[in-house]
């Protein structure tokens, strides 16, 4: 009697064990890719559009994946995209759970290269495609002199301004210096009714971009000669100036909690006088339908003494991971996805700029995007250190405090300390 029960208990116990074992084990597909056995590779990317609509980047990648599957019936590409605000967290969660994607679009490649889980760009891309990448951005994918990241889409930043509000406030032209920007923002804020003079999104979504534009305006930046100088005098002076704007009520309230997408859609709704933005603001304005194309314009971003000659240029990179050993399948897919037609399709979908020279040349004379394309060669990029991914997360979480009451020197000092200590 007792023994039977003990046996039953043992069965129950081992069943529990088996269940736990099942849930944690993952089927590991391996293969060279050229054989006939079916292969699945996973692509994890950022969503540049709105999830659930035809504008979603999920749709873009899925159509490429479908066309690719038709040409290579034994390779299936699983696509997952997620909006920018949740992108870093979701990606970290996947990595921490060892549920590695094979291709990541939207993150800097250096940390993966450092960990030894990334393919070199030359391993997964044909030489001709590689040579066609815009050199300024291709360099951004370097880790210790070897290219790992592959620029996929790029953008440069400029100042968007609302001509209607400018006229209402009696302003003739776009500001070229900080002092002019401050005066203009104050005039626009005086219009009242919730109108924001200058939109300063320092919330977690893209605080590192807004901050960088101001740092560049003061002649600062995240790094000097490859070393972090986050709390340099120039950067602190930039944040001190931003504080005066916030305190005077020339910006939205509590910028440290306001995300970029909120400011962009408020600009599109016609309630924001000026906001820094990439070409991606254009489709938002068009979708909102409140501003006609004659109601807004872009201008170079103002700096302390004059407009920025080295504006922020951002490229979103693709990095391929070697964890599942699917080199040839990845290579086939990337060469397929980097065709000019798909690059052009992406650019026209989101009004971003191409990552390939041939596609950029084709757009240089475009009335709307020409100015952005021409800014590419002199643009300033983010650092390309292996720990930039972590530093960027830290900036997103904390830098907003520098305009919300804490002294800029303290906040920037903490980020600097983190940048120097992390990832060693």
């Amino acid at each position, binding site marked *: 009697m007792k023994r039977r029960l003990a046996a039953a208990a043992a069965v129950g116990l081992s069943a529990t064990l088996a269940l736990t074992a099942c849930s944690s084990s993952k089927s590991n597909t391996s293969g060279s890719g050229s054989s006939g056995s079916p292969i699945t590779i996973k692509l994890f990317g950022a969503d540049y559009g709105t999830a659930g609509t035809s504008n979603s980047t999920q749709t873009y990648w899925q159509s490429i994946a479908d066309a690719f599957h038709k040409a290579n019936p034994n390779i299936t590409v699983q696509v997952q995209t997620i909006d920018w605000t949740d992108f870093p967290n979701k990606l970290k969660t996947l990595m921490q759970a060892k549920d590695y994607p094979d291709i990541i679009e939207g993150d800097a490649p250096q940390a993966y290269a450092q960990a030894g889980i990334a393919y070199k760009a030359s391993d997964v891309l044909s030489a001709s495609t590689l040579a066609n990448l815009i050199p300024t951005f291709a360099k951004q994918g370097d880790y210790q002199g070897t290219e790992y990241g592959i620029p996929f889409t790029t953008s440069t930043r400029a100042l968007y301004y609302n001509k209607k509000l400018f006229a209402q406030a009696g302003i003739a032209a776009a500001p070229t210096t900080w002092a002019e920007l401050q005066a203009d923002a104050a005039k626009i804020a005086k219009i009242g*009714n919730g109108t924001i003079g200058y939109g300063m999104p320092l919330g977690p979504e893209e605080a590192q971009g807004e901050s960088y534009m101001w740092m560049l305006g003061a002649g600062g930046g995240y790094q000097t000669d490859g070393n972090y100088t986050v709390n340099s005098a120039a950067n602190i002076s930039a944040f001190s100036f931003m504080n005066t704007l916030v305190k005077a009520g020339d910006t939205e309230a509590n910028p440290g909690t306001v995300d970029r997408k909120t400011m962009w859609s408020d600009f599109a709704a016609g309630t924001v006088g000026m906001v820094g933005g990439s070409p991606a603001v254009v489709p938002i304005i068009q979708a909102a339908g409140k501003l006609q194309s004659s109601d807004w314009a872009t201008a170079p971003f103002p700096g302390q003494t004059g407009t920025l000659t080295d504006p922020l240029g951002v490229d979103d990179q693709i990095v391929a991971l070697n964890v599942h050993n699917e080199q040839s399948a990845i290579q086939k897919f990337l060469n397929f996805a980097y065709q000019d037609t798909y690059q052009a399709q992406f650019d026209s979908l989101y009004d971003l700029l191409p990552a390939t020279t041939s596609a950029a040349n084709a757009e240089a004379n475009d009335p709307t995007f020409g100015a952005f394309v021409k800014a590419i060669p002199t643009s300033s990029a983010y650092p390309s250190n292996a720990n930039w991914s972590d530093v960027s997360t830290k900036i997103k*979480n904390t830098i907003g405090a520098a305009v919300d009451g804490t002294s800029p020197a303290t*906040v920037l000092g903490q980020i600097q300390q983190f940048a120097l200590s992390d990832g060693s």
Partner: protein
Amino acid sequence: MQETVDTESGAQQVTAGRAAVRAPRRPGRARRLTRALAPLPWLAPALALIGFAVLWPVWEMFQTSRQHINSFGFDLGDYGWKNFSAVFDDPNLASVMARTGVWVFAVVALTVLISLAFAQLFNQRFPGRKVVRWALIAPWAASVMMTSIVFRWMLDPNNGVINVLLHQLGIVSQFNGTQASWLGNPTHAMYWMIVVAVFVSVPFTTYALLAGLSSIPAEVYEAARVDGAGRLRTYWAITFPLLRPAMTVAILINLMNVFNSFPIIYTMTGGGPDSQTSTSTVYMYTLKTLNIGQSGALSVINFGVVIVIVLIFLRANKNSLKES
């Protein structure tokens, strides 16, 4: 069973000759041991479940807190107590812990006070009581995440309904202004999040107290009436003391729930700006995006804090729990 007894008695015979004094005690001890182990097969599945679902994760958490694990989840080896010293050196820790204390105390105290009143009301007979009792379940049944998102939008500085209402009442002078940005200001954000936390905690607490109220026998109240006790006196001398066991359980569960509460704060402010609205549970998650080891260390600390709170509370309420 048969087998064990046989060996026992065999052993007994051998030892009996050598030490006559010890002999009679041994079979007693053995029998006691067998009797103590007898329920084990029946308990084993439950124990195994506790082992896997509770003890093993706790062990893993403790292990994690002593490893150097970067934000990618790569284990860079043993790290001793460095994660703990990093967490204790963190300039945010003191304010986060103080905020956690205020958050737990404020939410639990307000919840219990409001629930006491609600329970009293719902214990009365009045037309439509059934409907009102059902209605109270709504905030409990709805996902906390959903409730938080709804509140976040209601507080939107540009066009949230709460701001529109306050604007029409003349309290908020301008949209998009400092005043309208409720969730942007850390202090105001905490007030609003406490409101939401109380809102979602009240239903459970009310029902727990209501169950306690309905278990108080009517004769006690009759006796009080005969003795000429007033309403207030009846409440303080009879209802409140007899409600204590139910209240103890309700407070205990709320303490743990609120301390571990994540979705409200994470959804409404994300703990920001710069962790100025983070409690220790939310801060643990913020750390996770940068360093898993440190996050694990903070988990261990949180775990310890919860256990200490619960032990202190149970000790203080030993008697009321015994009565139940």
